[in-house]
């Protein structure tokens, strides 16, 4: 891919951007390292070590052990006593599925430095990759008791709970995240999704509120608009819904679907999307609530 990235400075900027924006793109990272940056490592200066770490993790992600070994040995030469490099070594054991070795190293790191958050998180992933979700949850809740402001960890815990279908606990995690950044439409959308999945009239009502807020914060959030449409249609067809609210819901669903068709109309696939929307509407309404 990315034929235009042939100059090492462009690649450096791109990788930096990916590091900051939190993109996974592991295969591309490894490719770019091999094609361009490996020959210009000396020019990177201090940033080079960050790049090496990034490439190392990306290489593990693609199971490209040659590149991973190269990065690790370079880092090890430069920082022989670093706990961070030791953690990377543990990650490599993890990638080659030697979980006991990895756990030993991580325990050693934590013993040396009790505040080493990253190593504690790696312990969670070791349990997770072995399929021991309950243990992973326990480890992660212990971790969160110490590091309560770690958004990444709350998100992970939320996903773990969702995989166990513990919706209430998962919702609690997202509530925590929403406290951290109340204007992030994605957290609001996530909370609404969990509530929508839980089902029941009260939960639908909560979901609708949060979908609305997400759509308000980002009017281009298609997923929130779809969610808004679906929840309001569901609410309108619910027998518990008073007639006043029924009208409101129908109005809201119409507004959401209008909004969606406008959004998709601004893209090219006008015909296609309008058909899908119509189909979705038919599918969801089913009964005579709207007609």
């Amino acid at each position: 891919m990315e034929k235009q990235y042939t100059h090492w400075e462009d690649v450096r900027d791109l990788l930096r951007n990916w590091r900051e924006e939190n993109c996974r793109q592991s295969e591309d990272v490894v490719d770019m390292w091999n094609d361009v940056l490996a020959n210009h490592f000396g020019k990177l200066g201090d940033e080079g070590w960050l790049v090496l770490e990034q490439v190392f993790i990306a290489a593990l992600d693609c199971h490209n052990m040659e590149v991973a070994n190269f990065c690790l040995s370079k880092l090890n030469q430069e920082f022989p006593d670093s706990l961070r490099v030791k953690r990377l070594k543990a990650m490599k054991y993890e990638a080659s599925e030697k979980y006991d070795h990895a756990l030993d190293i991580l325990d050693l790191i934590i013993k040396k430095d009790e505040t080493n958050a990253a190593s504690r998180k790696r312990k969670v992933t070791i349990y997770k990759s072995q399929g021991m979700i309950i243990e992973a949850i326990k480890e992660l809740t212990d971790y969160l008791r110490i590091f309560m402001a770690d958004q990444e960890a709350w998100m992970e815990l939320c996903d773990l709970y969702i995989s166990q279908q513990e919706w209430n606990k998962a919702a609690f995690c997202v509530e925590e995240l929403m406290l951290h950044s109340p204007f992030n439409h994605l957290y609001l959308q996530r909370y609404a999704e969990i509530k929508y999945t839980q089902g029941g009239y009260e939960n639908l009502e909560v979901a609708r509120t949060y979908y609305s807020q997400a759509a308000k914060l980002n009017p281009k959030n298609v997923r929130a608009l779809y969610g808004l449409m679906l929840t309001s249609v569901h609410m309108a067809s619910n027998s518990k819904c008073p007639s006043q609210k029924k009208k409101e819901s129908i109005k809201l669903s119409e507004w959401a679907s209008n909004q969606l068709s406008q959004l998709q109309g601004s893209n090219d696939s006008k015909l296609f999307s309008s058909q899908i929307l119509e189909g979705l509407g038919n599918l969801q309404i089913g009964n005579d609530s709207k007609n």
Partner: protein
Amino acid sequence: MSSSMNKYMFILGIVLLFHAAYSAAQHRSYLRLTEQEFTSLPADIVLQTIFSLLLAVFGVTMIAGEFKEIRSNIDLQKKTWKNLNNRPSFYTFNHRGHIFNPIAFSRSSSGKGALEAN
């Protein structure tokens, strides 16, 4: 073009500001020499001070860079779930990635050798 304009404006503002300060000092020493009572600075110095201060403030604001959006949700609107939900410290590696890697089959052997080398 405008960035260099802003720079000149800032420099001009600062220079004028210093000039105003110098004029004020000159005025005071002139008053002392002629043994007059000090009441207030002449209007032109006051005007120059205010004008050059505004100029410098404007210039330095424009030099400092792009303005950030004051509404906090604008920056967040650009975030996608894909990147937000990607958590580097919780990567697991026992996924299908190694199947797509052509040299995957050598992974266990090469991995071992290198770890011992470290």
